[in-house]
């Protein structure tokens, strides 16, 4: 009982991110990278950008998911040890954005992997991304009680 509370506390305080661009214009990606810089500094929350899927808890996906990337996205998600969460960032990640329906796309991250949080915007401001991540962390407690 005490151990599981400790684990939940730890998971909330140490969300490690993996960033994957599945065919985005880069706007969302540079706002994600900007999160680590002094003005926004998400390391305050224990957030770290990790290099390998095996080290990460939260997968940040930007982009429309092109056909070429779809298989890779699935493989990356499978490589992450569970519990793992997926955040779709930007209008493109949510539903394809301005490119929805174009021929080489799957238009949206949830066509390939389950998504836990959608952060709309083109691109969303870093404050919006932080807000989304923090809200996701808050739901961790609720979901683990179920």
């Amino acid at each position, binding site marked *: 009982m005490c151990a599981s509370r400790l684990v939940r506390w730890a998971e909330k305080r140490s969300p490690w991110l993996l960033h994957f661009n599945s065919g985005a214009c880069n706007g969302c990606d540079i706002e994600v990278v900007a999160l680590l810089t002094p003005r926004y500094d998400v*390391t*305050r929350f224990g957030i770290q950008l990790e290099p390998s899927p*095996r080290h990460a808890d939260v997968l940040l996906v930007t982009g429309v998911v092109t056909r070429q990337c779809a298989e890779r996205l699935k493989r990356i998600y499978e490589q992450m040890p569970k519990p793992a969460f997926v955040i779709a960032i930007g209008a493109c990640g949510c539903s394809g954005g301005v490119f929805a329906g174009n021929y080489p796309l799957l238009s949206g991250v949830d066509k390939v992997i389950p998504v836990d949080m959608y952060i709309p915007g083109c691109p969303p401001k870093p404050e919006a991304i932080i807000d989304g991540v923090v809200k996701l962390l808050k739901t961790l407690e609720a979901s683990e009680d179920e």
Partner: protein
Amino acid sequence: MVSIDLVFFIRSLLFPGFLFILLMSLFYDWVTRKVEARMQNRVGPNTAGPAGIFQPLADIVKLLAKERLVPHDVRSLAFTLAPVLSLAIFIFTLFFLPIDGSTTLSGISFEGDLIVILSIITLANLFLFLAGWASTNAYSKIGASRVLVMFLGYDIPLVIIALTPAFLANSLSVSTIATSQSIPFLFLIPWSFVLFLVTLQAELEKDPFDIPDAETEIVGGYETEYGGTGLAFLKLAKDVQLFLGSALVVELFLGGPYGPVYFDMPALWFTIWFILKVLFVVILGEFIANIFARLRIDQVLSISWKQVMPLSVVSLMATLIVAFWVLPIIGVGG
């Protein structure tokens, strides 16, 4: 002979043994993160506990709670054991260093334990190499081979420099070296101190020598395929290695845990001085790491063999002069 009794268990498992070592390693991990953050004009972790001090603990607990994933092609015994053995060896090596005035297990120190410590550190590093070698990923293998190549460069200078305090103290036992520093050796042989810090940076794989962990080149290096438990042990092993390296600097050059004692409580005050001195070395090391870019492996080897190696030999000569001619004149030393 070490007697197995209640004191043995308390000292080895709680203080200044296992638990104390782990807690201090996590503490120094937090210190490095804060120093790095402040040097980069950021704040660093500040939500997990007051000033974020529990952040490393949160990281380790979270990792231990994750799903266990072992890639199917790995040599699974080596894959699973390498991080654990690394961690165990680093912790055990710390038993040789006097932390509260005496070594963790009384009677464990002997003449020549400095050589043993240096060899065990090498062995533990080899287990880190094994961690990468046991993974199937090409990145892990390159990271692992880089550990060995770096080792070719810095290990010999490291041993030579580590022996210089032994000449001053006239002993090869770390405990004796620590006790014979009425003037810390940092002031008597400062060149040695500087060189030891440089080779220690390479040993600890920190900038400018953090090549095996060059994330932008080889992803996670030897850590790439590890997730969950294995990664937790690897990270703990690195933290304890940092503590061990800094503790060695303190014992050899900064006078060990010895310092002014108040209220006739030597164990407490020795521990406090020890913690403060190690803190100083950790901050110094992190400072150096943040002001340089990462060097390429051939540049590291070139610097090692063309500059550090000759300098360590010269430094050894200079130390011998100090030990045999200068010190007797001043009347210092054992």
